[in-house]
């Protein structure tokens, strides 16, 4: 594998982890978030600061990073208890802008220069780079997917589905909206934090602009494209949106246009996403299964 495709693959795996996190919030619990990149950024900055200024290793910093992003996710999830749908969407956009400006203008976070010199991850005495980093990211993606899968099978997951479908009915069945919306926010933002930490140690240099609103839109596009509320949807979405720009590299100026067009087409023809219910992929799959048995 070339250096180039390893880099693309690693970034896709990292973004898939972040998209899985957003899927917990948007797809499972039905809470709209247009500011998910903020948590991607919080994870990256937390890990970068803890390993440079803090002098910790990636591994000892990681639990703290997950704790910090989850905790901030909890606080920023509080508006979701009072706001619905469009108002929540606008609030989360606002949160994204605030977080980016804090990174950009507060000297502690390196200001416009960002943070550089982030150490490599060391595992079994080896400095992780290249293919090893790709494998490490894929491993973390696998763990993320496992947690998502376990979550959908747990009573907490079912409670989130019920909230997504009808909050009033769900609460009359013993589901506390406060408890389970915040659970989804904590879980989802912690996954974004994990993605952020990996990103920081992969790029080894981060700046606030990496985590702006366009990144949030891109992550949401991955979830919608792949299929909200499905297990593999965000991974597929990250793959497609990660590979397409490389394939269409000559069209780089039209990238945002292509995203928009793709999203519109999806909403029009496959509203459930590529892996959603009644999607072409699912129908073909069930036809194949039916043919075998």
């Amino acid at each position, binding site marked *: 594998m070339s250096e180039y495709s390893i880099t693309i693959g690693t970034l896709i795996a990292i973004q898939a982890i972040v998209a899985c996190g957003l899927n917990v919030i948007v797809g499972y619990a039905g809470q709209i978030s247009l500011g998910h990149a903020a948590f991607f950024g919080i994870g990256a900055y937390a890990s970068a600061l803890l390993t440079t200024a803090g002098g910790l290793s990636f591994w000892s910093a990681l639990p703290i990073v997950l704790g910090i992003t989850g905790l901030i996710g909890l606080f920023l999830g509080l508006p979701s208890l009072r706001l619905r749908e469009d108002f929540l969407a606008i609030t989360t956009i606002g949160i994204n802008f605030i977080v980016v400006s804090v990174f950009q203008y507060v000297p502690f976070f390196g200001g416009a220069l960002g943070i550089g010199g982030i150490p490599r991850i060391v595992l079994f005495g080896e400095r992780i780079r290249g293919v090893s980093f790709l494998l490490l990211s894929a491993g973390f993606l696998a763990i993320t997917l496992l947690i998502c899968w376990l979550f959908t099978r747990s009573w907490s997951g*079912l409670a989130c589905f019920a909230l997504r479908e009808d909050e009033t009915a769900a609460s009359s*069945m013993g589901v506390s909206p406060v408890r389970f919306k915040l659970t989804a926010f904590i879980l989802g933002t912690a996954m974004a934090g994990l993605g952020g930490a990996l990103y920081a140690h992969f790029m080894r240099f981060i700046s606030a602009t990496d985590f702006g609103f366009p990144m949030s839109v891109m992550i949401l596009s991955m979830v919608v494209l792949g299929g909200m509320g499905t297990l593999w949807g965000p991974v597929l979405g990250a793959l497609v949106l990660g590979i397409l720009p490389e394939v269409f590299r000559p069209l780089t100026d039209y990238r945002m246009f292509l995203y928009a067009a793709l999203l519109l087409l999806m909403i029009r023809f496959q509203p459930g996403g590529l892996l959603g219910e009644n999607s072409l992929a699912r129908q073909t799959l069930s036809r194949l299964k039916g043919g075998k048995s």
Partner: protein
Amino acid sequence: MDEALLSLREISMHFGGLKALDKVSFDLREGEILGLIGPNGAGKTTCFNTVSGVYRPTSGEIRFRGTRTDGLPPHRMAALGIGRTFQIVRPFPNLTVLENVIVAAGLNCYGKLIPSCRPWKGRKTREEAMEILARVGLDSQAEQKAGLLPLGNLRRLELARALALKPHLLLLDESFSGLRHEEIAQQEELVRKTRESGISILLIEHNMRVAMGLCDRLVVLDHGMKLAEGKPESIRNNPEVIRAYLGKGGSANAS
């Protein structure tokens, strides 16, 4: 009066200047079917919403099984043993009929950290839910998406979900409206069976024939106040009730 399962004392619910409920008091005894009737806008649904925790009453006291419950949120009321249905049905449309019922079966898991992490796809849970679906006659549609069911089946699904909570008290908000004749008869049968299984019932009903036939006692609300309370036959002949329903001067024609 300490035998009362549910008791409302001087419950008032004001929305700004509107007195939706004005010092309403009544008791529901263990094992009875109590009907809440009254003209449109009398405050029946508001009364339901204060009992089920959707609204916190402006003043007054609600006791359920001896504990004070006014102001508790809906999910706490469910945990205490109050199940409810909605006047405008509220299914979980993208979940299957079976999953809709299983959501209610998780009542005892949602409040605690470790049980809420356990899987819900167990065989025992499924069998219990299927049994409840069989009771309301929906077992053949268990794997269908709830959003695809016609209204009659949705009303039965709402009942099934409420039953899956294993409640002490069931609140039925116009569970008969919009149903065809034969469906009403089936639903009446279901409500009777439910009571026989030891669940007390408070219901709102517009259809007088159903309310009179099903309820042990009736409470009549009008303009947010309790107008009358008693056995169906005494309510039927109460001149005040007739006046509230038919207007002044109508009483002569009603009898």
